[in-house]
C-alpha cells in the first residue's frame, strides 16, 4: 500500500513534507537548543492522533461525534487517577485507558447509534458534557482545578518518556503506525462496510449487514485510539483536567478533521498541524485570536469543501481517467 501511494503527485509531496517535518523537529530543537518546538509539535502530534481517530468514524463512517474529547479525558484521568493512587506503570495507564474508553464507547454508542444523524451529534455532545461535570464535581480528584501528575508514565528500562526526545519519537512512531493501520482498515472489508453505512445505510441493511454492530465497533476502536491520545496528553502536560473534555475541545477536533479533509486520514494530521500552529502564532500577535481564527476557519471550511489536504486528493483523482 505504501508502494501504491502516489508519492509524486502534489498530495504525495505534501504528505512527505509533513512526515519529514515531524521527523526532523527534534533534530532542529537539538541544534538550536530550543526544546519549545519539540513540546509544541509533541502536542500537535497528540492532537493529530485524536483527530485521526475521529476522522475514521466521521469521514468514513459519517458519524459526526461532537463529544470525542470525552475519550481524551478518559485517557488523561486514567493516568491521573492511577498516579494519584501510586500506580505509575505506563502499561497500566494504557491498559486502563483502553478498557475504560471501550466500555464508555459501548455504553454511549448503544444509545447514540440508534438515533438520527442530527440527534447523534447532540447526544455525543451531551455525554461528553456529562463526564465533564462528573470530573468537575469529583473534588477528590481535583475537580475544577484538575489533577497534577507527579511523574510521567513509567515504561520501564526500554523507554523513558521523561526524556522529551524519546517521548517525541515514541509518539511519532505511534502516529505513523496508526496512519498505516488506519489506511489498511479503510480499504478492508470492515472499512468498506463502514463507508457503505455512511453512503446508504438503508441499502446496507437490505443487503444483509447488521449495520449497528459494525458502526459500534468502529466507534469503539475510534474511542480507544483517542483514549491513548489522552494518556499521551496527560503525560505531556503532567496534568489532567475536565477542560480536556470540554465541548470546545470536541469542536476543535472536528475542525481539525474537516480542515484537513474528511476524505483522508493524513488530512486530519494536516488539519491538526495547521490549526494548532495558527492558534499558537496568532495568540502571540493578537489579543483576541478567536476573532480572526474563528471566522477564518469557518470560511475555509465552507469554501474548500474537501479541506486543505483533501482538495489535493480530489485534484489528483480528477486527473486520472
Amino acid at each position: 500500500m505504501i508502494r501504491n501511494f502516489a508519492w509524486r503527485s502534489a498530495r504525495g509531496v505534501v504528505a512527505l513534507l509533513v512526515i519529514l517535518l515531524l521527523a526532523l523537529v527534534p533534530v532542529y530543537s537539538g541544534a538550536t537548543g530550543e526544546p519549545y518546538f519539540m513540546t509544541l509539535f509533541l502536542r500537535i502530534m497528540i492532537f493529530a492522533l485524536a483527530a485521526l481517530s475521529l476522522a475514521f468514524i466521521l469521514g468514513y463512517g459519517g458519524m459526526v461525534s461532537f463529544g470525542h474529547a470525552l475519550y481524551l479525558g478518559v485517557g488523561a484521568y486514567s493516568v491521573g487517577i492511577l498516579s494519584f493512587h501510586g500506580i505509575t506503570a505506563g502499561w497500566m495507564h494504557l491498559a486502563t485507558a483502553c478498557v475504560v474508553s471501550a466500555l464508555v464507547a459501548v455504553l454511549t454508542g448503544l444509545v447514540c447509534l440508534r438515533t438520527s444523524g442530527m440527534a447523534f451529534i447532540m447526544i455525543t455532545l451531551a455525554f461528553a458534557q456529562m463526564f465533564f461535570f462528573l470530573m468537575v464535581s469529583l473534588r477528590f480528584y481535583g475537580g475544577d482545578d484538575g489533577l497534577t501528575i507527579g511523574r510521567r508514565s513509567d515504561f520501564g528500562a526500554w523507554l523513558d518518556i521523561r526524556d522529551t526526545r524519546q517521548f517525541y519519537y515514541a509518539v511519532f512512531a505511534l502516529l505513523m503506525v496508526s496512519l498505516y493501520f488506519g489506511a489498511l482498515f479503510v480499504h478492508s472489508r470492515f472499512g468498506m462496510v463502514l463507508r457503505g453505512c455512511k453512503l446508504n445505510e438503508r441499502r446496507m441493511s437490505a443487503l444483509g449487514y447488521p449495520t449497528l454492530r459494525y458502526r459500534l465497533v468502529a466507534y469503539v476502536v475510534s474511542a480507544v485510539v483517542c483514549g491513548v491520545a489522552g494518556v499521551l496528553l496527560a503525560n505531556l502536560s503532567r496534568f489532567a483536567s475536565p477542560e480536556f473534555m470540554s465541548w470546545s475541545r470536541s469542536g476543535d477536533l472536528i475542525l481539525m478533521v474537516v480542515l484537513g479533509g474528511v476524505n483522508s486520514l493524513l488530512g486530519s494530521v494536516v488539519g491538526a498541524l495547521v490549526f494548532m500552529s495558527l492558534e499558537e502564532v496568532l495568540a502571540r500577535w493578537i489579543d483576541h485570536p478567536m476573532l480572526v481564527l474563528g471566522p477564518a476557519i469557518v470560511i475555509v471550511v465552507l469554501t474548500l469543501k474537501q479541506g486543505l489536504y483533501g482538495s489535493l486528493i480530489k485534484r489528483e483523482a480528477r486527473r486520472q481517467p
Partner: protein
Amino acid sequence: MSWSLQFVQLLNGIQLGLLLFLLGAGLTLVLGIMNFVNLTHGSLYMVGAYFAASLYNWSGSFLVVLAAVPATLVFGMLLERICLITLYRRDHLDQVLATFGLILFLDELVRAIWGPAPQFMVVPPMLSGTIGLFGIPYPAYRFLIICVGLAVALAVYLIIHKTRVGMLIRAGANNRDMVGALGVNIGRLNSIVFGFGAALAGLAGVMAGPILAIQPGMGAPILILTLVVIVVGGIGSIQGAFYAALIIGVVDTVGRTALPLMLRQLIEPSLAQAAGPPIASMLIYILMAVVLAFRPQGLFPVRH
C-alpha cells in the same frame, strides 16, 4: 428534608424547566423544520443577557431592560441574514462547524466589548422580596419567571394550534418538502421560525440575567442542556420540548438536593457527601440515556 424545602426546590425546578422550554421551543423548530443544527442559539441567550445588563446599567430602569428582547430578535435576524442563511442547504457537519466557529467568535466579541469579568444585574426592587405560596415563602422574582414562562407556553400553544402560521409550522415540522411544494414561501416561514426562536432565547437571557452569572461563554452549557431537552422531547415537537424541559428542570434541581440526602441514608455521610454531587450532576444525562434506550426518537416524536 422538610416539605417546605422540597416545595421550594420543586418550584425552582419548574422555573429552570420553563427557562429551558423558552430556549427549547425555538430551537426544536429550527432543528425540525429547517433541518438546521443551530448551535448559536445559546449565544442568542447570552446576547439577551448582556443587552439586558447593559441597558440596566445605562438606564437604571427595568422597563428599558425589556427592550433587550426585541434587540436580541434584531440581532438574531441580522446573524441569520448575514451568516446562517448560506448554511441551510449544507449538510449537518458544515452547519455544526460553522455555528461552532460563530460561538467562539461571539464569545470572543463579547469578551472584547464587555471584558472577561461577569456582568451584574440585580433583581427589580419590587420583586426582590418573597411571596407566600400555600404559606411557604418563595422568591417573587423566580415566581415571576414561572408565570411568564407559563404564559409564553400558553401563547405558543395557541399560536401553534390555533393560527394559520402555527398550522404551517406544524406542517413544516411534519413534511418540510411538501409544504414548499404546496406553494408556501418557505424562506419567509424559516425566517418566522428563526425569529420566534431568537425572541424566546432573548427573553430567557433577559429573565435569567439577575439570577445567573452573565459572562462570556455562558451560552454553551445552557445550549447543551437545551439540546438534551430537545432530544428527550423529540426533535421538532414543541409539546415534547415542554414536557421534557419540565422533567429535566425538576430532576436536575430536586436531584441535586435530594440525592445527597438519600445517599446519606444508605452509606456513610462522608462518602455520601463526596459521591452525591457527582452523581447528581449526571442525573439528567442518565435520564436522557434511559429515555433514548427505549424511545430513540424521543418522548413525543413528530411522525413523518
